[in-house]
C-alpha cells in the first residue's frame, strides 16, 4: 500500500507493507535521525512527533500516519536543539534525536516547564553514556530563558 503524509512540512508518498513500523519507512526516506534501539518502546531512540504528539516509530504502524504530519529531530531547528548543542549535551549522541523530539513536545505544551516536568518528559528515553545531567541543564536553561 502507499501512504501520503507531511514529513517536516513537506509532502511525502511512500509504499509500505502492512504492519510495517514507521521507523523503517522513515529511514527509507533518508530520515536517519529516527533510530532503532529496542523495537519495543523501551528506549526512545526512535521517537517522532505524529500530529504533534510524541510516538514510538519502532512500533507505530506506518499506515497510521496516512494524511497526517510527522516531525523528526532533523526538522526541529528549535531553541531546545540549539541548547543541547551549545551545552555539548551528549556523548555518543545516539539518543539525542529522540530527546529533541520529547523536548519539543514538552515545550509546546508548557512554555516554562519545571525541572520535574523536564525529567518526566524524558522518562521514556534512555541514554547509556550518562549525558543526562547536561541534557537536563540545557533544557532547564531554555525554560529559564523563556518568556513567562
Amino acid at each position: 500500500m502507499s501512504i501520503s503524509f507531511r514529513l517536516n512540512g513537506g509532502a511525502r508518498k511512500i509504499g509500505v507493507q502492512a504492519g510495517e513500523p514507521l521507523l523503517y519507512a522513515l529511514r527509507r526516506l533518508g530520515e536517519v535521525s529516527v533510530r532503532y534501539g529496542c523495537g519495543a518502546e523501551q528506549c526512545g531512540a526512535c521517537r517522532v512527533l505524529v500530529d504533534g504528539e510524541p510516538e514510538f516509530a519502532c512500533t507505530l504502524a506506518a499506515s497510521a500516519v496516512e494524511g497526517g504530519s510527522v516531525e523528526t529531530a532533523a526538522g526541529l531547528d528549535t531553541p531546545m536543539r540549539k541548547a543541547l548543542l551549545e551545552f555539548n549535551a551528549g556523548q555518543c549522541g545516539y539518543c539525542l534525536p529522540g530527546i529533541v523530539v520529547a523536548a519539543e513536545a514538552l515545550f509546546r505544551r508548557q512554555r516554562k516547564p519545571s525541572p520535574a516536568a523536564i525529567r518526566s518528559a524524558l522518562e521514556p528515553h534512555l541514554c547509556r553514556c550518562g549525558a543526562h545531567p547536561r541534557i537536563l541543564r540545557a533544557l532547564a536553561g531554555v525554560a529559564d530563558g523563556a518568556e513567562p
Partner: protein
Amino acid sequence: MSLPPGLRAFPRLSDWVRIEAPQRVVVCTGKVEIGQGILTALRLIVAEELDVDPERIVTRTAHTGRTPNEGITAGSMSLEISGAALRQAAAWLRRLLLEHAAAELGVASDRLSVEDGAVTAPGINRPLDYWQLPPVPEGFEIRDAIAEKSPNAYRWVGVGRQPRIDLPAKLRGKPAFVQDLPCDLHARVVRPPSLHHRLDALDASVEAPAHLVVNGSFVAVAHPDEYTATRLAERVRSTAKWHASAAAPLTGSLADHMRSNEAAALPLDDGKPTDRPVRRFATAHQATYSRPFLMHGSLGPSAAWALWEGERLLVRSSSQGIELLRGMLAKVLRLDPTQVEVAHSEGSGCYGHNGADDAALDAALVARALPNQAILLQWSRADEHRFEPFGPAMQVDMGASLTDDTVSHWRHDVRGFTHSGRPSPHRPGVDMLAAWLLAEPFEPSPPQPGRAPESGLHRNALPLYQFPNQEVVKRFCTSSPLRTSSLRSLGAHCNVFAIESFMDELAHHAGLAPDEFRQRHLGHDSRALAVLEGAVQLAGGLAGPRGMAIARYKNRQCCAAVVVEVAVNDAAEVRVSHAWIAADAGRVVDRDGLINQLEGGFVQALSWTLFEEVSFDSQGATNTDWNDYPILRFADVPTIETTLLDYPEEQPVGAGEALQGPTSAAVANAIFAATSIRPRHLPFTPANLRQAASSQGSGDPSSSV
C-alpha cells in the same frame, strides 16, 4: 625530552598533520571516536600548537593503510598517546613552516608570530599565511623531540567550552553512525538459541531479491528492504532446528563457582602478578565484596557495513581496534591482510569490547557470500542483550588490622574471570562469535591471566594508600558461565569498590571521619590529597547520609574522588540526590569534554551500582531487553557538581574510567551512613539491601533520613 612512541613508530610528519588547501589543516589519528570526544580534544591540541583556529582543522580517524596504527582505543590512553604524538608533530610542522616564512620575510624565525595561520613580523606589512608557504617535503621524518608551546600561552587548550565536532550532525539528523551508511542489502543474523547450540536443519527457501547465507551454524539473511530483512530473519528463525551441546552447569552459587574454579593465585610484586607463594598473615577485620556480570548495553545494537569486491574486503566498523580486526577478519576468511581494509565508522557508545567486532565478522561473511553488494548488518536488541561479551563478575576478599588507628596489615584477594576477550592476532584463538559457528569453526582463546601491571582483573588491586604490610593476590578463575571481555575500567571497578568500602569500614572501626582516616594513609601523595580535599570541600563536608571514595585509575592516570548523598526509603530503594566530583587529569585539554567524561562515567557507574545484573542460566544470558535488564533513567539522575584540578605542566590523561569504582563505593558508604547497613554485593537493589540487613542483623534497611 623523548619522542612520543607514536612518532617513533610512524615518524613521517605528513602521516599525522599536514597543511591543505583551502585554508585547512588535516589531522590523522589511529584513535577512534566512541562518544568520549577524543577527536574534539585532539583537534584542540593541534590548533593550539599551530596557532590555527580549531574550526580549520579536519580530523581523519582510524582507517587501515591511511592513518597511523595506534592500536586499540581503550584504557583511557588516547589523549595521552595520540595527543602527545600530535602535539609534537604539530610543533614540528610549525617550526618548518616558520623557517620558510622567516626566509620569505627576511627575519629571524623567533621574531615571527602566528594568528590563525597568518604569519607576521614586527615592522613587516606583508600578508603571509601557512597556506602560501611551500609545502613540507612529503617524506619528512621526525627523529627527535623539539620544544612545544608553553601552556602559559594557551588560548584554546584548557579554556572554556569548546564545541564537540561530532554533535551537530547527530542533533540535526544527518547520517552519523555506521547504522546510517547507504547499502544495497540490509542483513540480519539468525543466532542459535545459545552459544552451546548448533544448527540441525533449516527449512526455508528464499527467492531473489532475498538471500539466505548459511555456513555451519552461522545463519544470516539479506534483502534490499530493511523491514523485509527483519521479517525474513524471523521467518528463518521459526524454521531453524538446533541441538544443544552439554553446557557445564554452575557448581553452586556464582560465588561458590568462582571459588571452586580458581586456576591461579598470583601475588603482586611491584604491581606484577608473580608465581611466588602467597604470604599469609592474620587480620583482625575481614569483608567480601562482589559485583555481578554487567552489560555494555549500547543503545544502538551493534552493526557493520561490508563490501566484497574483486577478492578484496572493505569493512566499516565501530570496533575500538580496526587494525586488530583487520588481522582477524583475514584469519577467519583465510585472506592475506592486504586484501582486507577496515575503516572506523562511529557506532552507538560502546564502553569497552561490545558486539562491534562480532558484527564486523557477521557482515564480512555475508558480503563474501553476496559479492559486489554493499551489506549493512545490524543486530536486534535481543541479540545485543544476549550475545555481547559481558563485563565479568568479580569477588574481592579484604582483610586488615589496625594499630593506633592506622592500617598495619592489608590483604586484598581479587577473584574473577578474564577481562581480555578482544579479537587479536596476538592471541592463540579467534575471539569473534561467528567464527565459532562456521562449518569449519575456530576455537576461542583459552583464558589466561594477564601478567602486566594494572591489567584486567588486578587493575587497581593495589591500593592508593601506603600500608606497612600488604599482600595483594590475583586469583584467576576459568569456566565462566558467560563469555566475558573488557568493560569500562575492567577490574578497577570492583577492586576500588572493595578498597574504598573497606577503608570506610576501617575508618568506622577507628572512630575517625572517612576523609581523615584516608588522609592518614596518603601522606606520600599530595596530588591525591588535593583531590580528596577538593571533593569534600565542594560537598561542604561529609556530615549526614553521605559517602565518599577516591582512586587513581591504574594508579598512574586520572585521580578522582566523589562524594554522594543518598536517601533510602521504606521500600529499601536508594536514591542518590547529589554528587560532588573532584578530579586531577593532569593538564586540562578540553575542559568541558573532561567534565562530560567524568560526569558521564559517574552516571553510568551509578546505573551499574543501583540496578544492573546480567541474569543467566546454563545456556547463557537470559535478559533480552531493557525491562529485564533495567538501567538508570532520567528520574534517577542526581544533581552533580564537578571541580577540576589543572596541572598545565603535566601530561594530560584520560578520565573516562576514573569514577567507576569510586562511584559504587561512595554510594555504599553513603548507604551505610544513612542506614547502618553495609552493602557489599552489587547491585544495591531493595532485595540485596534487605539481604544485607538480615545478614548483618540490622533489621530494617530503610533509613531514618
